[in-house]
Structure formats: C-alpha cells, structure tokens
C-alpha cells in the first residue's frame, strides 16, 4: 500500500475510498471516476493500436516485393483505409484524451473531472463505435475508399456496399466521445484548479491540453457535419457532393480537411505537452521559457486551422489561394521552433538524468525534427505538386505522427507507469524496445522518402518490378517488422512490470507537479485534502506536500457526508469560489451509450424504424440524466444547514454547467458555421449550381415562426432576469408560457418545411435547405423540451431562488437557437432574394 497511509490517516482515507471508489464486480461498468475512465480509454486505445499495427504489417507484407498477390486489390484497399481510420480515430485521439482525462485533475489538484458521467458516456460511445467500425473488417465489408473517404468514390454509386456507412456512422459515434472529452477538459481546466493556481501557475501540460480540447471543440464539427451530409447523400439520396444536382466533391474535401488538419495538431499538442513536462523533470530544473511556450501553444492552436488546403494543393484551386495556405503552413514552423529552443535552453541549464523516458524523448526529437522539416518542404506548393500523394508524404506523415505522438506517448507511459502500478519499469527490456522501435521506424520510413521521390504513388496495392522501387520497398518492409518487434518488447515490458517491477517510492523521478503528490498506486480520489497551490512547482518547493495532503491538512478533508466534492475556482486567478458536488457511480452513461449504439446499428442496417425508436429512447435517457441533477434527491438536495462559504455550485449562477453549455455551443456553432460555409461554397463554387426561381419557403409563416421563437426566448429571459434578482414568483408559469410559445414556433416551422416544394433528392440547394431546417427544428425542439422540464423542476423544488443555476444553463441554448434561426433566414432567404435568386 501507499507509503503515505499511516495509522493516523488510515480511517479517513478508507472513508474516501468508499465514497470515491467504483462499485464492485459488474458495478465497475457504472464507474464515472476519471482515473478509471481515463485508464480504460488508454487501454482500449492500445488494443486498437495493435489492430492498426497488424493491418500495417499486412500492408508492408504485400508491398515487400513487386507484383505480389498476397492481398487482392480489394483487400488491400480495405486494409489501408482501416489502418488510417483505426490509428487516427480509434488510437491516437482517444489514447491522448484518456491520458489527459487521467492526468489533468491530478495536475490541477482536484479529485475528478467536472462532468464525470460525461466522461463515462464518452468512453462507451468510443468503445461501441470502435467495435462497430472494426467489426466491418471481419465481415469483409470494411470501407475501402480511404480514411479520407473522398467523394464521389465513397458515394453510393461507386461504393454500393456498406463500407462507407460503417465508417460514417461509426466515426460520428466515436466523435461524440471526442467532443464530450473536449468540452469536459476545457471546463475542468478552467474551473476546477486548486486554490491560487492562476493561469500562469498551471503546469505547462494543462496549457497544451486546454489548447487540444478547444481544438477538438472547434475542429471536429466540420467532419461531423460532412459525415452527416455524406450519409444523407448515400442513404437518402440527397445532393451535396454530386455534381449533377449542384453539389461539389470538393466540398467534402474542404470539410474533411477543415477537421483533418487541426486533428494533426490535436494529436501533436499533447505529445509536445508530455515532452515539455518530462524535460524539466529529467533536467532537474524548472522549464525555461514558460511564457514563450504558452505563446507557441496558442499560435499553433490557431494557425493550424489555416492550413487545411495544403492537403488540397493539387485539386486545381487558383495558385494565389494556394499561396495563402502555403504561407500559413510555413508559419506553423515558428511556434514549433520556439518550443524546441525552449527545450534546448532548459536542457542547457539543467543537469540531465538519463532514464528510460528520456530515451524516448530523444527519439521524439530526432524523428519529429526530420518530419517537421519535410513538412516545410511539402508546404511549398511547386514541390508539393511533385510529391503529393506519393510515398514521400507517407513517410513525412509517419515521421510527424509517430515522432510527434507515439514516441512522447511511450515516454509518458514509462514516466507515469509507477503512478498507476506503484512499480518501476525494467531498464534493460525497455532499452531493447526503444532501440528496436527507433531503428525499425527509421529503416521503414527514411528510405520511403526516396520511394516517393522515385514516383511511387500512395495507395497502390502492387507495383511493377524494375521501376526502381523494389529495393526501397523491401527495406521498408523489413524495417516495419523490426519496429513491430520493438513495440512488442515495449508491451511485454509494461505487462511484466506490473508483476516484477521493483516497487517505486513516492515521486520516483523527483518531479515538480502535483500529480506526484497522490498516493501510489493511485487512489480514486487523488487528494484527501485540497491544498492551495500558488506555485508552478509545488513539489520542488515543498517535498512534504504529499504527506500533508494525505493527512488532511487542507480543504474539503471531511468526507463523512458521503458526497463527492471538489472546489470550483475562477478561470483566470484560480481563486476558489464554490464547492462543486459531483455525481457518483451511475448506469446512465452505459445505458445512453448502448441506446445510441442501437441507433447507429439501426441506421447501418437501414432499419430506420429501429433507429427512430432507439433515438427517442436515447433522448429520454439523456433527459432522465439531466433530471438527476442539482437539488434532486440523488444529487445535492436542499438542507437546512447549507454550506455557504464557499457555497455549493448549484446554489450559484455561475456553475460549471453553464461553462459546459457555452463550450458545447461553441462546438455546435462550428457545426452550424460549417453548414453555412457549405451553403455559400456550393452557391459560389459548385460547377452546376442551380437555385429555384423563387425561394421554396413560405416567407410569412417563416417570419411568424421566427417572431414566436423570439417571444419565447424573451419570456425565458424575463424569468431568468427575475430569478437573478432573487424573485422566483410566477417562474414556473413563465417557463410554461415560454415552452408553449416555443412549441407553436416549432409546429409552424415544421409546417414550413413540410409544405415547401423541396426537391431534396434533385437539387443541392434544396438538400442544404432541408438540412438547415432540420437543424433549426432540433434546436427549437430541444429548447422547448428543456424549458418545459425547467417548469416541472420548479414544481418539484429542484429550481428555486435557493437553487437557481439550471435556468442559467438553459439560457445560452435559447440565445443560440434564436441566433441560428435569424442567421439562417438571412443566409437562405434574404440574401438570395437580394441577390436575385441566383
């Protein structure tokens, strides 16, 4: 057991174990604790990594010699599509999310993430979605149009099978998980830091994860939208990417890479975060250039959204436009270089201790620098025109992703393993693993640059002999297998260490950050008391901190009330301003995830009734979830002796729920903006765009519907304003009124949709319009339903002057619904009218 437990604190710590622990046996499935969920993400991700790795070995086997027929063209296409899909969507992102979910609360000195049930739902969506996607391989109907799914090849005419549907539905399902992790990490980092940990005192890793999480929130929606549109085109015959009806295949590429490029940085940032965390520890001095690195992270976060067209340099976009993106692509070298030289400066002034994790960091350095430099080459349009879609890009991309993500990740694994297992990894086997992986990797991919320059395109299942590619490919294949052996050695090492590793002492690497102040192996509650952390290096400054925390010398040390509690603090300064009461183990996430999986399977098998019924149940399940909140008996019911200093979060106006809603609406807004982009893009750029002579929507009913929506929102606003002033009289009635008017608006808008002569299967114009109206309807319906629920919760006493927070969470939804409605009217009705219907 942990060396921090002693006779003095054992009783209290065991009480903590009971309150924060998972249920035994099958009850483990109801776990919401970030340590459990984070580790599950990581382990599941590693399983998918092995699957992706096996696929890679099959690819390399096929390509080892020219004119082989081990794999047919069809099989090869499925396998390379799945290799990319599995590695990107089911390994890289989820593993990093999992690592972040595991580490962040520990680093910022709190006990859990701020929406624990959402973590669990995210995990189940990921698990079920991943299983659905991978199962397609075993059914021999895996997607074979590439992980990028370019239309029209992925459309229903050229890919009539279910492959693309597996991809589109499965990936969208998995992305629910990414989005929820994104929202959760943003709010957790901003709102639950230890007292006094202002932004500038945050461990640097938190800045990286904050940027990554925000990038997920803004980066994933374009792909979610694209997937929905493509699935609608495939399943319902609507027109978005098909030229004939006024669509454009390039719209898919824009949406895909609008996501796809930021995704690369979403993967790289946590990797760099691990490097920035480990280097100072092994140099035994604080990180130099903290502010520079923060600056670099912010720069990267933004500029990486301006690069997407560099995946489209060869599609025939005017050179001037390409040059804009070429410039932006090169600019990203600056924040990367800033980080590298800050690391060098840290090493320069430190005394480096050379442990196993540092070896992997060294591997990162060598591989990533090389990949970054070929990246600058590729950013140069005239050179890219030669090597685009050749093995040069394959090599570059693996250098960047394996160098920028896998190597730091394994460094991180070795570094944080003692945290999880309480044991140290083996140095010998670990070194073998490193060198085999490192050498194998470079043998595979260094020569591959040349294969590409010699003209070998990507995604060919075989090639003629004698083109100058034979030897290179053989070398690459041999290297691939060496690397596989290396990875196997690492896995064996990690597995063995759980049994044979020598026990680790507290803080075995002499690290500076708070996650090493928890008990080892890790406990479910992290900290038995929550300290003030007014410094960036708490353990450098006070090595006795772990014991003091375990002895309960700081805040929220009492758990006899049986509730899971953490501090909520101000986003900028980190001053504690409330106590957040967190939900405990719950079956709702598993239940909701399973029902959503049924929706997904229903759509996949084209059993639309099943999907519809399941969708209704999914909504009900989520609404039930939202019912178990605030002052509900299962949560934090009102009591006579309420805690007031600091107060419970549900007793304030500024709860984490409000932040979660706002961040979620930012992501949602990105989805909406992507749809607007699609509309304007098709309007201006689609080769055969056609618009009906007259707008198909009935104008006055539409405007009347908008007026009703506006009134509903204003009524809600009025009720919320009174609540803030401490007056809840008539609140229930006002909510009902708002909800009824909202319903009238919904009904009228639905009528507008149904009565419009829309030819959604003929014209892209009408397809986009239909999707937009459905999007508006969903939001109107949601606002209406949750407002009605608020009215009911007033009735039950869950919302009142003393528990005012929920209406403030709902209010942004109304604002959002109102904004998207009028923006849509402007973009889809007024603008075309002003333009003359063209």
């Amino acid at each position, binding site marked *: 057991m942990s060396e921090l437990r002693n006779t003095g604190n054992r009783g209290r710590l065991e009480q903590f174990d009971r309150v924060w622990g998972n249920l035994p046996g099958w009850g483990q499935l109801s776990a919401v604790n970030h340590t459990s969920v984070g580790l599950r993400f990581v382990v599941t991700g590693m399983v998918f990594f092995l699957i992706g790795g096996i696929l890679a070995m099959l690819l390399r086997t096929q390509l080892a010699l020219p004119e082989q027929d081990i794999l047919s063209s069809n099989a090869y296409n499925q396998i390379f599509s799945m290799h990319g899909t599995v590695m990107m969507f089911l390994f890289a992102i989820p593993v990093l999310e999992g690592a972040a979910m595991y580490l962040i609360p520990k680093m910022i000195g709190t006990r859990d993430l701020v929406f624990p049930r959402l973590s669990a739902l995210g995990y189940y969506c990921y698990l079920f979605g991943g299983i659905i996607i991978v199962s397609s391989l075993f059914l021999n109907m895996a997607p074979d149009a590439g992980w990028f799914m370019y239309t029209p090849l992925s459309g229903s005419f050229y890919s009539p099978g279910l492959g693309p549907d597996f991809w589109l539905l499965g990936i969208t399902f998995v992305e629910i998980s990414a989005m929820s992790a994104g929202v959760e990490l943003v709010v957790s980092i901003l709102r639950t830091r230890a007292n006094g940990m202002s932004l500038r005192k945050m461990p640097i890793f938190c800045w990286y994860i904050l940027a990554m999480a925000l990038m997920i929130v803004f980066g994933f929606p374009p792909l979610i939208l694209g997937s929905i549109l493509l699935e609608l085109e495939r399943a319902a015959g609507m027109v978005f990417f098909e030229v004939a009806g006024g669509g454009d295949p390039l719209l898919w590429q824009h949406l895909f890479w609008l996501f796809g490029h930021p995704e690369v940085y979403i993967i790289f940032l946590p990797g760099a975060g691990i490097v920035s965390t480990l280097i100072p520890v092994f140099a035994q001095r604080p990180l130099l250039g903290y502010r520079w690195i923060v600056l670099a992270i912010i720069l990267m976060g933004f500029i990486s959204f301006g690069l997407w067209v560099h995946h489209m340099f060869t599609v025939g976009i005017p050179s001037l436009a390409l040059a804009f993106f070429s410039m932006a692509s090169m600019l990203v070298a600056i924040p990367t270089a800033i980080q590298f030289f800050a690391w060098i400066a840290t090493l320069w002034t430190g005394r480096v201790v050379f442990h196993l994790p540092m070896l992997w960091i060294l591997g990162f350095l060598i591989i990533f620098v090389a990949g970054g430099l070929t990246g600058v080459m590729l950013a140069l*349009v005239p050179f890219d025109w030669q090597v685009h879609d050749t093995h040069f890009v394959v090599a570059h991309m693996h250098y960047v992703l394996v160098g920028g993500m896998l190597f730091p990740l394994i460094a991180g694994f070795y570094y944080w393993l003692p945290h999880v297992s309480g044991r140290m990894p083996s140095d010998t086997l670990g070194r073998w693993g490193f060198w085999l992986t490192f050498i194998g990797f470079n043998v595979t991919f260094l020569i591959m640059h040349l294969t590409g320059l010699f003209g070998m395109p990507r995604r060919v299942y075989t090639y003629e002999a004698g083109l*100058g590619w034979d030897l290179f490919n053989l070398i690459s294949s041999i290297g691939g297998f060496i690397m596989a052996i290396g990875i196997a050695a690492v896995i064996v090492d990690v597995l063995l260490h759980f049994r044979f590793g020598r026990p680790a002492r507290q803080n075995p690497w002499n690290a500076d950050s708070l996650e090493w102040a928890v008990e080892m192996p890790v406990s479910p509650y992290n900290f038995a008391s929550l300290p003030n952390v007014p410094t960036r290096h708490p353990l450098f400054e006070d090595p006795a901190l772990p014991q003091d925390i375990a002895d309960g010398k700081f805040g929220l040390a009492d758990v006899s009330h049986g509730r899971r509690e953490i501090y909520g603090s101000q986003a900028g300064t980190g001053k504690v301003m409330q106590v957040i009461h967190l939900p405990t183990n719950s079956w709702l996430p598993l239940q909701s995830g399973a029902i959503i999986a049924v929706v997904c399977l229903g759509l996949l098998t084209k059993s639309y009734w099943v999907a519809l019924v399941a969708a209704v149940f999914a909504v009900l399940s989520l609404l039930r979830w939202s019912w178990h909140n605030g002052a509900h008996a299962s949560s934090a019911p009102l009591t006579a002796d309420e805690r007031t200093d600091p107060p419970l979060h549900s007793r304030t106006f500024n709860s984490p729920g409000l932040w979660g809603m706002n961040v979620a609406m930012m992501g949602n807004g990105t989805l909406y903006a992507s749809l607007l982009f699609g509309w304007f893009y098709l309007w201006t750029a689609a080769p055969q765009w056609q618009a009906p002579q007259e707008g198909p929507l009935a104008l006055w009913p539409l405007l009347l519907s908008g007026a009703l929506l506006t009134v509903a929102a204003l009524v809600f606003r009025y009720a919320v304003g009174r609540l803030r002033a401490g007056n809840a009289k008539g609140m229930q009635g006002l909510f009902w009124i708002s909800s009824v008017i909202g319903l009238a608006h919904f009904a009228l808008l639905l009528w507008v949709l149904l009565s419009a002569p829309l030819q959604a299967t003929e014209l892209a114009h009408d397809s986009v319009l239909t999707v937009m109206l459905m999007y508006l309807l969903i939001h109107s319906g949601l606002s209406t339903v949750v407002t009605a629920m608020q009215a009911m919760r007033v009735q039950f006493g869950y919302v009142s002057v003393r528990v005012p927070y929920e209406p403030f969470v709902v209010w942004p939804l109304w604002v959002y619904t109102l904004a998207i409605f009028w923006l849509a009217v402007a973009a889809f009705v007024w603008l075309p009218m002003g333009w003359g219907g063209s």
Partner: protein
Amino acid sequence: MCLLVTGCGGPFSALDPAGPSATAASWLWWGMFGYFTLVMLVVFALWFYAMHRDPGDVDQQQSQRLQNRWVIWGGLVLPGVSLTVVLAFGLPIGRAMLPLPLEHGEPLRLNVMAQQWRWDVSYPDSNIVLEDRLVIPAGEPVDVHLNSADVIHSFWVPRLAGKLDVIPGRTNVIRIQADQPGTYRGHCAEFCGAGHAHMHFVVEALEPEAFQTWLMQEQADE
C-alpha cells in the same frame, strides 16, 4: 545519395527530370534537402551538447537571458530566415509552372478524359483519339485539359511536371513540356478504386517536325 543507390533513374523518378517544371521542382528538392539537413544536424548537435554539458550554477537572471536568447534566435530568427529563403525561391518557381498565357502564340492543347481506369486522350480540331497515350511535340509547352467521367483521379508524369487532380465537374489545366524526344510514363496519383494501381499511361514526345507528320498521318487514317 540516391545516385549511389540506383542512379536517379527509374521511369517515374521526379529526380530525373526531363521538363522545365520537373527540373525546377527537383532543384527545389535538392536545395531544401541540403539546407534542411544542415539545420537538422545543427539542432541535433545543440540538443546533444545541451544534454551533456555541465551547466554550472545558473541564477534566475542568467537563465532568463539565456532563454530569451535561445528562443529569439532559434525560435524566431532561424525559422524566419529559413522560410524567407525557401519562399524567395519557391514562390517565383511556382508561378513559372502555371499555365499562364505565353508571350508568343498559343500552347498546344490536349483533352484528357479520365475514368476508372483509363485515360482517353483527344486532340481538339481533329478527330484523333488515343487511349492511355499522349503524343506531344518535344520542346514546346502543352496544356492538358483534364476532365473526369466518374471519380477523382490525378494526372502525373513525374519526369515532366507535378500532378494535377482530375475533378468531376471541373476542367483543370496542367502545363507539361518535354525537353527531349522520348517516352515518359505517367500514372494516376489519386486513389480511385480497385484499379488505381494499374491506371498508367505514357507521354510520347516527338521532334516537332515528326509530331506534325504524325498528326497528319493520324488524321488521314481516321
């Protein structure tokens, strides 16, 4: 390096250019390869030295100065200068590859229709139709107008020029030029389904006079 391996040959090698665009791109490659290798080695050397040197005692102020010096020189100036150099060469080279109007006369025009998995080549103002084969005059710029009958393909003759995608619904124009008569191989570079790996074609460059003769003969044969 590659000279040692097989010569820069191979019928698809971008490093064995035979036209102005491909030549410019290969020079870009060798230039960037040399320069970036240098940058890379310097970064490695600094990193290794930084890791192994004895730092002595560094106080707060010194490390602050050191940090700013490293980041400003390495993080801002180095990439700033490098990018400026790369762009100073790259932007004009890119411009020269565009199918801009010529100073004298019009370039020869060819139409290529790509489909799963072949290339249909036609010559405007004549009824010549070829499959998987382009015949062009050597030493003259030729504009190839690309159209797709089905999915996205990409037209690439590595020894002559970079690639350009063939997008349904659009006509993309790529300019190619072969400096010497000869046969140059090309293939589809964008994944286009089961037959992607076999979607090859050749470009035959003839002496301009021989090309005119060929054009005449073919037209007569039709």
